[in-house]
């Protein structure tokens, strides 16, 4: 008991010496603390599943569980609970389950609050076809990087006269530059060959023109990664005919939202798609993007794949590549074997059985 407290104290002290990117695992077994937000609905079940699998894989991760609900802070502004914020700021890495936004609750969506609090400017969604979960599209292997703070989702709308509404799409130089830089860095860190900027600069000449210009400038600085630009409609047209021609896609908010969901549909839906949000100051929150599924909550029917793959993405981000690979391979092997699958993947097993099968595979790999 005292041992773990001592260990977590040491890790906290060590954590304060660390800057943005954590160091890769060396021979000293360094436990890294990660904030875990289980979420609502099926969130707690799948978070438990992920924790179990990580334990079986001996991943050096310590979980700090926090709950996120909207509370009214001083000044009437909606914010997340202060202990959750403090935990995230300290740990820098977070894993989040699905959060529900009640309609007419008076506060903005939880995802929006988190985004604003931690300035999560990039949403990264790698879409890789899962062997064993057949869709009409095979060999999909692309990453969509979406600017998450401005663009069409700025939320600035006015009623000019009765019957005429105006929505403002905001594009700033700073945000475009930041996302373009991140895209090229991601491509470099993950051995990706090319980055494609998706835009509609022929129609929205000034706004998307600015975005495109910033992407071009970032491309100049990163000459080792190939850069192409493509219109949004051409991308959609080609994506459904031949998704293998795309690698990393970077785009503003609305197009990113649509394209990332389109790509998720190509590999099998939101139940198997991982997602990560990168923020300023080295904060990164990885999440599952599906809903809370209140109808199956608590019945052990949930599929933890999306959260698990997001957790694997998190391990990679932290530099723990070997653990990430181990867990990912175990997960894909289990799905490929088709013996123990949850209902949405076409099988009949329970969540706990599926989790146990993955844990077994992970243990066998050691």
């Amino acid at each position, binding site marked *: 008991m005292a041992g773990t407290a001592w260990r977590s104290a040491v890790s906290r002290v060590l954590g304060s010496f660390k800057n943005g990117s954590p160091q890769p695992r060396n021979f000293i077994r360094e436990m890294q603390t990660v904030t875990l937000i289980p979420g609502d609905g099926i969130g707690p079940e799948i978070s438990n599943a992920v924790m179990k699998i990580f334990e079986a894989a001996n991943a050096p991760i310590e979980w700090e569980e926090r709950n996120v609900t909207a509370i009214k802070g001083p000044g009437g502004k909606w914010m997340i609970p202060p202990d959750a914020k403090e935990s995230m700021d300290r740990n820098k890495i977070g894993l989040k389950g699905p959060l529900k936004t009640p309609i007419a609750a008076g506060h903005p969506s939880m995802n929006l609050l988190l985004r604003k609090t931690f300035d999560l400017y990039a949403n990264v969604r790698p879409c890789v076809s899962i062997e064993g979960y057949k*869709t009409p599209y095979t060999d999909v292997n692309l990453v969509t990087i979406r600017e998450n703070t401005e663009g*069409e989702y700025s939320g600035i709308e006015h009623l000019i006269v009765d019957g005429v509404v*105006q929505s403002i*799409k905001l594009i700033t*130089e700073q945000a475009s530059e930041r996302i373009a830089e991140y895209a090229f860095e991601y491509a470099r860190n993950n051995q990706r060959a090319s980055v494609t900027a998706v835009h509609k600069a022929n129609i929205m*000449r*000034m706004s998307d023109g600015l975005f495109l210009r910033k992407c071009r400038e970032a491309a100049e600085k990163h000459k080792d990664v190939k850069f192409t630009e493509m219109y949004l409609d051409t991308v959609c047209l080609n994506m*459904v005919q031949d998704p293998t021609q795309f690698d990393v896609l970077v785009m503003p908010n609305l197009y990113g939202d649509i394209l990332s969901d*389109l790509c998720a549909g190509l590999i099998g839906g939101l139940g198997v798609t991982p997602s990560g949000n990168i923020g300023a100051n080295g904060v990164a929150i990885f999440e599952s993007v599906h809903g809370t599924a209140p109808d199956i909550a608590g019945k052990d029917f949930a599929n933890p794949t999306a959260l698990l793959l997001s957790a694997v993405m998190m391990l990679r981000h932290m530099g723990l590549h070997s653990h990430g690979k181990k867990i990912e391979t175990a997960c894909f092997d289990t799905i490929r074997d088709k013996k123990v699958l949850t209902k949405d993947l076409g099988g009949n097993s329970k969540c706990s059985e599926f989790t146990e099968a993955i844990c077994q595979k992970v243990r066998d790999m050691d």
Partner: protein
Amino acid sequence: MAVALKRSLAVLVKSLGGPKWWQQASRSVSISASLSRVESPPARADATFKVTMLPGDGVGPELMTAVKDVFKAGDVPVEFDEFHLSEVQNMASEDKLEELLSSMKNNKVAIKGKIHTPMEFKGELASYEMRLRRKLDLFANVVHVNSLPGYSTRHNNLDLVIIREQTEGEYSSLEHESVPGVIECLKIITRAKSRRIAKFAFDYATKKGRNKVTAVHKANIMKLGDGLFLQCCAEVAQLYPKIKYENIIIDNCCMQLVQNPYQFDVLVMPNLYGNIIDNLAAGLVGGAGVVPGESYSAEYAVFETGARHPFAQAVGRNIANPTAMLLSAANMLRHLNLEYHSHMVSDAVKRVIKQGKVRTRDLGGYCTTGDFVHAVVENLRHRPNY
């Protein structure tokens, strides 16, 4: 037995050799010809329709040549008034636009290619194509997404109609730089235009016997803008109790289209989402070369391809697929009430695709545009008797 056989053979040979066989054969052909002539419209000179033609950029001119060739071979009573308006080739000016508009006022019907919009702008933010659309008030764009028999894709037997509002929304060309480095682009949604497109969609669905209209939006984020659009659609839906009305968020819609597109029938949406869904759906059935589309206003009808791309990489290489333009031309003939010719052209195109011997590069074949047009023309002559 052998004698009987020899005798019958002799009779056969005599009948073949004699003039009677030719007479018989030619008589049957002429009967069929006269039957068909009764259905076809009267002689050319009195009843030629005039249609404005705008080849546009990229492969537009090649596709227009294909249409003209097929029409000539099929003896279609349509004459084209050509105009060459192009922003990239510096052939655009206010006067040309005026000429084009006056021609449209006379003819009311046009067939056009895509006028490419360059990314650099010289003063005006709105491209010529958008200005043309606004001046003619072509508010509705209809794209017919039909799977081609004989060409299988990942999703077969699709039959969707995508209706897109074309004059407002995100393409309002109202942009300004408020502070250096910060650009605002305005998206305008009005009640009048949303109601108009919703009514158009439901009227279209009623006319074509469709069961369901789905509105596509993002009202959970753009609460006022898309919220207004959704409200108008819901209001209009109440006037059409026989048609089922649903709505779906744009990102979910894209996901459903690639997983299960059969749940949709008629889709209606504002401008930008329409652009995305048009191209997505075109990709589902075979690409930009096979999907026809048209734009309507209260007075005019403009026929073009569904997914509008100039396809400049294919210029001069004779590889563009004219299917979309030919099917659109067939739709134009139906609009002009030339039912017979319309069927003739569309049947010929569909037959060529079904046979699968002559296919352009985008459908997996090796033939040129010219070969394809030639095949269509051949199939025109062997039209079945109605």
